[in-house]
């Protein structure tokens, strides 16, 4: 692993992955008869071209930070929480219940209540898969996938039933009261006399996301719990030896993970211009979180950067399909390509680069024992 220097691991690999994705994307654009250069320019414009567009990019980034952190925390315990999608949905349900029916006098209180409820619901939703993994060895990937389906079903049931205002047909809750609406960055900027971010929904929960990054960083690298999570994730047998309870760590890591995913709902329910919970509110962010965490190397700083990139990709993609005749499906293909290259095919890029460093590099930090394939036992 240490066969290549750290900069290659955190910078070179993602950049090469992105270049590969870009090359395939160009081929796709050419295949559908679109000038790739124009498309690229349009996407860039869509992502960061105006302060309004940038606002949307940041809004999506906020989502992806939460789900990326959620995946990363579980990753540190070697657990693959693929259920972010469902946890976001449940988080949305929690936030909705907390702010829709309680007349909070001020948005700060609503933010607090909504965050706590969203985190709680997200955590609860992963609690059963976590328990099954910890106690019964049922694979977390399988169970969380199933829980995604259940979450989707439950949410639609709630939105189409108990939470649907009478006479409305949209699968959504009522719009939250104005008092619980979180201030958008636009509102905040106006306090300083600036007119930025237009009517984009980027809102104060971006700071909640950045705060969560700091929290996760401190948790993972500066607390006993984080130490135990990482130790357990690196080697379950060693954790056993050290008296670290597999059951506890599995539960705690997944609960934190679920809570983080759930908190994304604060952004996409209470934070949007028209605060309400709609069907499929997660919009795939739970899955994108996997790519974000992989690309960000499970580190909060990396996650922020990766989330920004994916946010730009999403916002730019929306612009691309709105401003051209490129079918939306092609845009989805492009987005999926980037996710695939940076997420799933990470190893495909990594190992040749690693080999290259082994062969030609002489700046590697690996000491002899690391690279010599001597039998140890």
């Amino acid at each position, binding site marked *: 692993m240490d066969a290549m220097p750290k900069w290659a691991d955190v910078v070179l690999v993602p950049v090469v992955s992105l270049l590969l994705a870009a090359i395939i994307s160009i081929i796709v654009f050419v295949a559908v008869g679109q000038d790739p250069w124009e498309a690229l320019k349009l996407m860039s414009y869509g992502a960061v071209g105006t302060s309004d567009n940038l606002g949307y990019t940041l809004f999506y980034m906020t989502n992806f930070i939460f789900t990326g952190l959620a995946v990363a925390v579980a990753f540190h315990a070697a657990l693959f929480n693929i259920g972010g999608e469902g946890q976001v949905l449940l988080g949305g349900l929690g936030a909705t219940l907390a702010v829709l029916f309680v007349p909070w006098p001020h948005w700060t209180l609503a933010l607090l209540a909504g965050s706590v409820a969203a985190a709680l619901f997200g955590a609860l939703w992963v609690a059963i898969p976590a328990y099954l993994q910890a106690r019964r060895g049922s694979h977390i990937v399988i169970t969380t996938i199933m829980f995604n389906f259940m979450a989707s079903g439950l949410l639609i049931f709630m939105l189409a039933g108990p939470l649907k205002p009478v006479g409305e047909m949209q699968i959504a809750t009522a719009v939250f009261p104005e008092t619980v609406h979180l201030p958008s960055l636009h509102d905040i900027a106006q306090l300083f006399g600036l007119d930025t971010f237009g009517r984009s929904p980027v809102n104060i929960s971006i700071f909640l996301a950045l705060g969560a990054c700091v929290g996760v960083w401190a948790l993972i690298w500066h607390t006993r719990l984080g130490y135990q999570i990482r130790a357990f994730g690196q080697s379950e*047998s060693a954790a056993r*030896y050290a*008296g670290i309870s597999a059951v506890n760590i599995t539960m705690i890591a997944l609960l934190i993970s679920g809570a983080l995913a759930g908190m994304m709902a604060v952004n996409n329910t209470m934070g949007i211009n028209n605060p309400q919970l709609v069907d499929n509110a997660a919009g795939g962010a739970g899955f994108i979180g996997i790519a974000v965490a992989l690309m960000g190397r499970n580190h909060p700083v990396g996650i922020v950067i990766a989330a920004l990139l994916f946010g730009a990709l999403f916002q730019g993609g929306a612009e691309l399909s709105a401003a051209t005749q490129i079918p939306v499906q092609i845009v989805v293909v492009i987005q999926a390509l980037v996710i695939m290259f940076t997420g799933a095919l990470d190893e495909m890029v990594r190992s040749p680069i690693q080999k290259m460093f*082994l*062969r030609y590099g002489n700046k590697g930090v690996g000491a*002899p024992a690391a690279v010599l394939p001597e039998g140890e036992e």
Partner: protein
Amino acid sequence: MSAQTQGGQTPAIELKGISKAFGPVQANKDISIRVMPGTIHGIIGENGAGKSTLMSILYGFYKADSGEIYINGKLTEIPDSDAAIAAGIGMVFQHFKLVKNFTVLENVVLGAEDGPMLRPSLRRGRQQLKELSEEYGLNVDPDAVIEDIGVGMQQRVEILKALYRQADILILDEPTGVLTPAEADQLFRILNRLKEEGKTIILITHKLREIMDITDTVSVMRRGEMTSTVKTTDTNPADLAERMVGRKVLLRVDKKPATPGEVVLDVRNLDVVDEKDVHRVKGVSFQVRAGEILGIAGVSGNGQSELLEVLGGYEEATGEILLNGQPLDLSGAKSDGQSRRARGIAHVPEDRQHEGLIMNFSAWENTAFGYHHDEKYQKNGLLMDNSAILKDAQEKMDRFDVRPPNPLLAAKNFSGGNQQKIVVAREIERDPDLLLVGQPTRGVDIGAIEFIHQQIVALRDAGKAILLVSVELEEIMGLSDRIAVMFDGKIMGERLPSETDEKELGLLMAGMTDTDAPHSIEEIEQNLAHAGEAE
């Protein structure tokens, strides 16, 4: 095959100037050897000396940066293992590459089938297997399923696989690591037989005794270089050890007689049944006193590991264990490693890579491993005091001469010996009442072995109780004040090192008490296979 060059001038294998570097590390540097046909050639060296790299080049796993390989005098390119097989080279790996739920015959034929249909291959295979088995006295049942047969037999299947592929040159990598002394003897008889039939054998090992017992010539490797090649009859163990390490080495542990005190550890009727419902430890009782080392000998997989795990607090057991007269909780459910440590038990586990260390953690983080709840490693009640741990790590590494003395380096970047020193430092510096030590020198270079042994003896002399588990008889004999032998989960007997020898312990390790009549190797094998769903 036809390449039965009679004792002539053409070497079976000749390597000329082989070099191989992994990044900055020169694993093999300008290595040249000649191995004559019909001989057994030993290659000895410490871990990391480059033995396995060299053999991997010969078997086509790596490509040498420079140098040439001659097989029977002919320059041969070996880009992959198929080419190696075609050139008549067979390899028996340290970790067997067998399909556990296939039969012997299926394993032998696997990958060397004649065509898409299996049946004709199996028919031909059965015939050839019978012939080979008889010719070399391998004595293997073709229809036995791998997971049902003993380790020694499995190894013979590996040899058969190579012979079936018409290998004339056999490379064996640390072949005796998993064998009892009797099984090792059996292997050596087979190797001699193969040699008589004209096969050429290369034996890679770090055990001096094996080199002396069986090889004709021996090459010593150190730090990627072939430092010397000598006739085995012209050397002796001390000389070889010196050539390996590069300085004089004390092969015997220097220690005073023990002065045992109070009973520290009292194990009574301990039984362990693992998750797969296998009865691992069967009614074991023993005591360890302050100021003594109790060595537990045995072939690996006979319950020693489980015994250590129970004592270390992470395996369930029934029976009774008293530490300083107070019972230990044996439920194992609470992952009780923490309270064990609090009670004064330190543990150098058998498997430092999978238990004792987190290989991707840096050395300093590993220093707190298991003791991460210690008050001295905390600050503000909430956070870990990373700088305190780092400082502590640096001190320990300096005291135990860990090289390189850089606590920021990941554990995996240290050599086996230095990794072990990190673990030993962590555990011994706790000043425990009872130290559990499993395989303290497995995969550890000779220089570090010496140091680690001295530390263990020093702890004993400080009046602590030590329970040592090792599969290396030499180590058991050298370190222990008393020896207990485990076989099939039971303690076969206790001996004083002064009143026993390797032969007697070897028999006990195979489940024979000394009152049993003389035995055949088959009997031992059966016994072992029967006892050990061992692995």
